[in-house]
């Protein structure tokens, strides 16, 4: 569960969100869209207390944000990270994630810096989901990765969110995310976040550049 009560976010003199009251549900992917510069990434960062906000954020656990600013050290090898995560978190669960993400097809001695962008995104999912967070925020997660990896990640997220019953907010410009992963749809504009009735409605909103 991720709920915002009287939530306001301001960066410098610019008010991004004012008095937001919204609740994102469990076991469903909540897609959050909005035009460039509206403050979606700042919204994500405020959820993990990197940016100050007013009001209240209620979450069933400390949210994790997975985006372009949450990378895994590239000088590690796959095996280094895998062994570390298994020793730190629940061994069987990390193994399950590892196989679900298709990481068993990558040689274990492979360095993370030599992996494709899609493989690196999967490594991020393995790392950040190993701690079994109840609230996950994906920030432009499928940007600039190949189609096959994107489809693998879609399949994984759909199964994962439903099976684990987590709250997942997917901040994305990528209409393909909306097309492949059904869920609930939200649009951020005019200092608020509003739920959009359907997938078709949010796609139209994107194409129009706003409501």
């Amino acid at each position: 569960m991720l709920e915002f009560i009287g939530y306001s976010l301001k960066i410098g003199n610019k008010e991004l969100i004012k008095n937001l009251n919204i609740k994102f549900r469990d076991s469903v992917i909540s897609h959050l869209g909005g035009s460039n510069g509206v403050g979606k990434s700042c919204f994500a960062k405020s959820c993990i207390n990197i940016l100050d906000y007013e009001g209240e954020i209620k979450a069933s656990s400390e949210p994790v944000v997975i985006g372009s600013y949450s990378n895994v050290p590239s000088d590690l090898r796959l095996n280094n990270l895998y062994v570390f995560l298994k020793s730190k978190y629940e061994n069987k669960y990390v193994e399950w994630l590892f196989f679900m993400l298709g990481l068993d097809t990558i040689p274990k001695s492979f360095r993370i810096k030599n992996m494709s962008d899609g493989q690196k995104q999967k490594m991020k999912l393995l790392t950040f989901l190993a701690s079994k967070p109840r609230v996950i925020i994906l920030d432009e997660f499928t940007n600039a990765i190949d189609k096959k990896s994107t489809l693998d990640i879609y399949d994984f997220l759909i199964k994962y969110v439903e099976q684990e019953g987590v709250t997942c907010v997917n901040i994305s410009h990528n209409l393909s995310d909306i097309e492949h992963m059904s869920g609930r749809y939200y649009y951020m504009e005019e200092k608020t976040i509003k739920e959009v009735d359907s997938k078709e409605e949010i796609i139209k909103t994107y194409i129009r550049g706003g409501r």
Partner: protein
Amino acid sequence: MELQRHINSRNYIFCFLTVIACFAFGYILPISLDHIQYLTLYDYFKSVYTVITQFGPMIFSIVAICVLNIDYKEKNILFYRNIGYSPLRHFLLRSLYIWLFFSLSLLAMNGVACMVFGDFSQFITMFLYYENALIYEVLVASIFAYLFKNILLAFCLNLVVWIGQIMIAAASELFWFFAYYDASSKLYYDLEKFLDTGNTSMLHVLPSVGYNLCVFLIFIIILILCRRRWIKNGIY
């Protein structure tokens, strides 16, 4: 995991090369600049110590800053936060391994120097002197690496502070501790006297350890006071 990162990145090679450079300069400088025909072991020790204290803030700091800064550059800080690391733990672990590689290199090169001259009588004493100077220089560089995401800025500020410390110490004897390891300091002067006369009362190993502990405490305080900087540097 941290050790594996350092080994995979081959940071130990850079550490070893910088120490070799110090020992090489320690030999070349007196021969080329002072035109000394024959260098004794004790002259060599003094020369290496001079290089470590006078050039160390440039040579060691660039390696330390680059290694510590990589997590800001690659935006790995949220990874560390997610696995439960605090800024203190993250930087202490990263600094610890750099210090370890530098120390092992110093130990090895000091051993080689003593072996070449066939005299190990001052092996431990000189290792401790080199080590204390190294620890200080890595600690100061680490503070700047932690505070500033820009490597060039961190390096330049490190140099400015180093030069500033020498100037302050030169301005008044009351501020001698600002440039504790500099060639103009009492520590350096007493080391020369010890190497010339063998008078062990000229040795100040423990006070140097105490001095480094004070710098370390300042490092910890800065880390704690500026802990939000760790996240901000790692995300933006």
